[in-house]
């Protein structure tokens, strides 16, 4: 089964390099900004970490879109789970040994693992996707920044002692794993097909990222270092705007949108 394989590269209005810059630089800057703002101005600024996660999620789903357009041979969800599988291993390593440089160490580690998987997928398994190495590297990096960003939004810091007790030991890491993975894999999975458009897919990525942000906000209610209200409110606002935008794109791309009315009361009326 080939899911969504159009057999060639995807057309893109926004070049991938801009999205890489948006995701990598935006994600890292937001994570560090969040950390320092929480340190010096108070826990209300923990939401910036989730904004970084959204940047990474949008970048990740753009990379998924590019690589999955070639046809993976299996469902798109596999690549999202792979991204977060690589990401979670690299994140734990980076945050544990990196200290203040933790997010950067995690990011680099993830990209090395991603590059190796991408190279092996082409050389040994023989998937024959020309952008496999680059895309795997991007997806692993994006998955890692999504995990670090959401952890920072939950606890207000990426220092490993706090993350370990408040995110990992409590099991919220599993929530991050699935919510982050879903946000990266779902946009293309939901929009794939011959009429798939980059802006529509990316608006779904913003929307899914906002849902992950709202969840991180709810979790941060029990954390001393992060405050829940700003994260939830800003998350809801982003969700509303991106979902409206997504709906506009759907209406734009559809041939026609008509109401079907309510179901008929009796079977005979439908004849």
């Amino acid at each position: 089964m080939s899911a969504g394989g159009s057999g060639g590269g995807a057309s893109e209005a926004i070049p991938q390099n801009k999205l890489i810059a948006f995701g990598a630089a935006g994600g890292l800057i937001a994570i560090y900004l969040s950390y320092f703002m929480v340190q010096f101005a108070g826990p209300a600024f923990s939401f910036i970490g989730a904004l970084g996660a959204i940047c990474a999620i949008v970048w990740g789903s753009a990379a998924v879109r590019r690589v999955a357009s070639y046809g993976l041979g299996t469902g798109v969800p596999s690549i999202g789970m792979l991204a977060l599988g690589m990401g979670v291993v690299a994140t734990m390593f980076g945050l544990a040994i990196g200290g203040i440089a933790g997010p950067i160490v995690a990011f680099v580690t993830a990209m090395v693992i991603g590059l190796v998987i991408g190279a092996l997928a082409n050389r040994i398994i023989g998937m024959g996707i020309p952008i496999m190495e680059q895309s795997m590297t991007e997806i692993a990096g994006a998955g890692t920044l999504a995990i670090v960003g959401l952890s920072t939004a939950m606890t207000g810091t990426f220092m490993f002692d706090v993350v370990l007790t408040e995110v990992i030991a409590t099991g919220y890491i599993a929530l991050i794993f699935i919510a982050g993975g879903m946000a990266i894999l779902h946009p293309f999975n939901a929009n794939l097909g011959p009429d798939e458009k980059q802006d529509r897919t990316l608006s779904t990525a913003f929307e899914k990222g906002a849902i992950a942000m709202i969840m991180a906000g709810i979790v941060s209610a029990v954390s001393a270092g992060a405050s829940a209200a700003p994260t939830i409110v800003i998350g809801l606002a982003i969700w509303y705007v991106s979902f409206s935008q997504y709906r506009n794109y759907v209406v734009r791309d559809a041939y026609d949108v008509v109401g079907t009315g309510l179901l008929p009361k009796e079977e005979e009326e439908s004849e």
Partner: protein
Amino acid sequence: MIDIAGVLAANFLYVILITLGGVLVSGSVHFVPVGGAPAAMAQATGIGTGTVQLAAGAGLTGLVTAGAMLNLTDSIALILAAGMVGAMIMIGVTMIIGNLVYIYGVGVPPASAKVDYDPITKDRQDIYVSQGTEGHGLPTVSFVSGIIGGGLGGIGGALVYYSLMSIANGMASADFIGLAAIFAVGIFFVNAVIPSYNIGGTIEGFHDPKFKKWPKAVVTSLIVTFMCAIVSVITIGGL
């Protein structure tokens, strides 16, 4: 700063065992009859969902049963057996319920399109395959293959978890269990996706011609899991 060389030297056995566990998971996926979306519409032999979902379902059940056994004993044989049985039960139940739906719900006989005769029961297959499909349901050979796959995957997952839990460290036990569990899950997912790309999303079991491709996935998993194992051993051993 962590003494990386010291931690690795002290725990090198566990790096090897984690790598072996990842390779077992990767190999096990080739046994599981994965039908993907076509099987969900009863148009291909196998369980109607993707490799990753099946491997996650069976493998994580294996992790839970292995983790429960780890509370009671330190014996590696018992822990691996618990992981194996847990995953086998999970995949077995999935296949039985799947077959019930295919036989009594959809109304198709279990039949393989890859072989004319079931290698185990010697039953004729080809005349029962509906036109335009790649087989449907789970014939005996696929079921047996799936049970073997579940068992191998369960051993692999349990081996990864047991090895991670055996590394000496200075963490509180709740933190340690959480960290080891999420590492095991991450390594498990990576090793479930790699073979799924190798088989192109669908496979009927060990009688499927695609099964012969398993060395490619195993070599890939060997290299990738070795990297992940080093990273996770340094993380846990250094804390």
